């Protein structure tokens, strides 16, 4: 699904990602772990197409197509979803109305008709029930005045509504209490199937205890220093990052 080849990225002439190779297969759950400042967030932003990064070398192929020339919205339309570490507040725009605009934009790009408003709202309500979110959640302004946990839950809500092929979670678990963590992992269970993929970027192993990724990579100074399966998380738990870097 996603293939990163010899990727080197820098910001203001400082190399952040250094000759990275990474492949995420369809239906797989992949975790990238690493200490702060190891370049994890840069990786997620480069995949999603944020401006301000210099791509010095390499390719990112999504469904075998290089996506470097695509705008963030085009990548979103192709099915790449990034759950933000710090979701952005937009006052005056109701959460549901934002989501509908987003979904219709994606549908338009893919040559589909606009959503039926009624069906959209029903789906929203069903889903918010499943995620145990209050329905006022839909009418409140996008992320405005949301608590940290609510913002993260809302990212999962958006993800489930947008049904992306690849979902990247950037530090979704930082600063969450145990209940919110459960809501989020439930959401991720609902999302995962053999046709889509998950890339979890995290500092901690807490979420991984629930999700049980298929592959785990340890990231440092812009590259993978160790790869393995879930057992690697446990090793990391015992020995800390120091062992690997």
């Amino acid at each position, binding site marked *: 699904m996603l293939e990163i080849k010899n990727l080197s990225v820098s910001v203001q002439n400082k190399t952040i990602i250094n000759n990275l190779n990474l492949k995420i297969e369809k239906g797989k759950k992949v975790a990238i772990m690493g200490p702060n400042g190891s370049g994890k967030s840069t990786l997620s932003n480069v995949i999603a*197409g944020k401006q301000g990064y210099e791509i010095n070398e390499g390719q990112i192929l999504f469904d075998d197509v290089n996506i470097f020339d695509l705008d963030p919205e085009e990548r979103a339309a192709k099915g790449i979803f990034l759950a*933000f570490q710090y979701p*952005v507040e937009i006052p*005056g*725009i109701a959460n549901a109305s934002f989501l509908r605009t987003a979904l219709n*934009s994606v549908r338009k790009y893919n040559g589909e008709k606009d959503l039926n408003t009624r069906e959209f709202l029903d789906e929203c309500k069903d889903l918010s029930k499943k995620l145990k979110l209050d329905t006022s959640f839909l009418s409140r302004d996008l992320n405005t005045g949301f608590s940290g946990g609510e913002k993260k839950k809302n990212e999962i809500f958006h993800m489930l509504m947008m049904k992306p092929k690849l979902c990247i979670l950037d530090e979704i678990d930082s600063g969450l209490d145990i209940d919110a963590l459960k809501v989020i992992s439930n959401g991720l269970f609902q999302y995962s199937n053999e046709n889509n993929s998950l890339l979890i970027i995290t500092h901690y192993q807490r979420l991984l205890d629930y999700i049980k990724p298929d592959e785990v990579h340890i990231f440092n100074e812009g590259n993978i220093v160790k790869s393995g399966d879930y057992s690697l998380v446990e090793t990391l738990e015992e020995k800390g990052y120091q062992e690997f870097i």
Partner: protein
Amino acid sequence: MTTKETAKIVEEVADYKYGFTTDIEQEFAPKGLNVDVVKFISKKKNEPQWLLDWRLNAFDMWKKRGHEMPNWANLKYDNIDFQNIHYFAAPKSDEEKPKSLDDIDPELLRAYNKLGIPLKEQEFLAGIKNSHKVAVDAVFDSVSVATTFKDELSKQGIIFCSFSEAVENHPELVKKYLGSVVPTNDNFFSNLNSAVFSDGSFVYIPPNVKCPMELSTYFRINAANTGQFERTLIIADKGSYVSYLEGCTAPMRDENQLHAAVVELVALEDAEIKYSTVQNWYPGDKNGNGGIYNFVTKRGTCLGDNSKISWTQVETGSAVTWKYPSVILKGNNSKGEFYSVALSNNMQQADTGTKMIHLGKNTSSRIVSKGISASKGQQTYRGLVSVFPNAINAKNFTQCDSLLIGNDCGAHTVPYINVRNELSDVAHEATTSKISEEQLYYCRQRGISEEDATALIVNGFCREVLKNLPMEFAVEAKKLLELSLEGAVG
């Protein structure tokens, strides 16, 4: 009136030294302003002596001002030559008019198309040669609708007519209230308007009548050339209610550079007036050529106890906007509101805001102003909240927020707050913000294009004001904002 008759009037009122011209289709006074022109206008409109006297008095006062335009606003514009303006019906000759839509600024046409305006109306709005007749047919629907409305309204005793008709049919009302809210001498432009006003709307709502529909001058096409010096007077008698809509979402291409309208509202005991405006006069091109100078005086008086006046405005047009819809809170427990969205893009400048004058006890006012500056636009909020010694328990809340899009624009906030009694509660809050890169990136990551994202965020910024507009107006206003913002991003 025939050409012959007009010529006669001209002979009567003037010693003919200006060589009044009569056109084949329409009659007009020569350029410039003098006593004869004022007399000519009054005569043309068959006005009674008292109104002519009123105009002449206004002209006299205006002359004494020595053509000194107010200069305190944060606006830069060329001086207006008041002797180089036609003050009565001065259509362009057909030779000067554009021959077809091909001759029109393509930007303007794009705007029409985006707003979904039919072709015939487009031709009229753009002032195409010979389009007048066709256009009238095209808007025939709305004209007839207006007549139907009139019948229905008159059953309830509501008077809704042109200002000239009101002078003829309801002189006692006009006499009583004309100039009672905006005195002739109030400011330079109200003074000018009082001398030369062309026409406008008149509304009277009798006691305890709730006007069953939104009254509106919202027909895409007004009678040509009445817009320049409009005069509107709305009176809501005891216990009545009216909602009035003014404006046009289509940018009207207009040869008149200067617009100086006066709007007066009077709310008696327990009455409520809601006045909504969408202003989208031609803003000029990207380089600041052309465009309307809009110098409007709008004011309402809450004359009776428990009355309420609410202004809502969406200002996206004009090269220069100078406008401060105000409320004088005279009656006890009266309420004033001002909700405003003003957008200046390209070279546009807007200096707009409100005045809330608290005179009565327990009066309250609320001001919500949202200013958006994009490209090289300059935007000023200028407001006055004044609480007089007897206005015990007066309350005011003011919020004015500015949004800047781009690096060459400016936002200015000038709130004057003057409190003269200790039992009042006045609060002012303001913020200035920009659309952050993060917000745009977040929207784009969810599949929304940069331009749509900008419009979305701007709409969110303005929501508090837009929700005060009547439904269909709100939808148009949203579209208008999106359209006016085009080219501001990137």
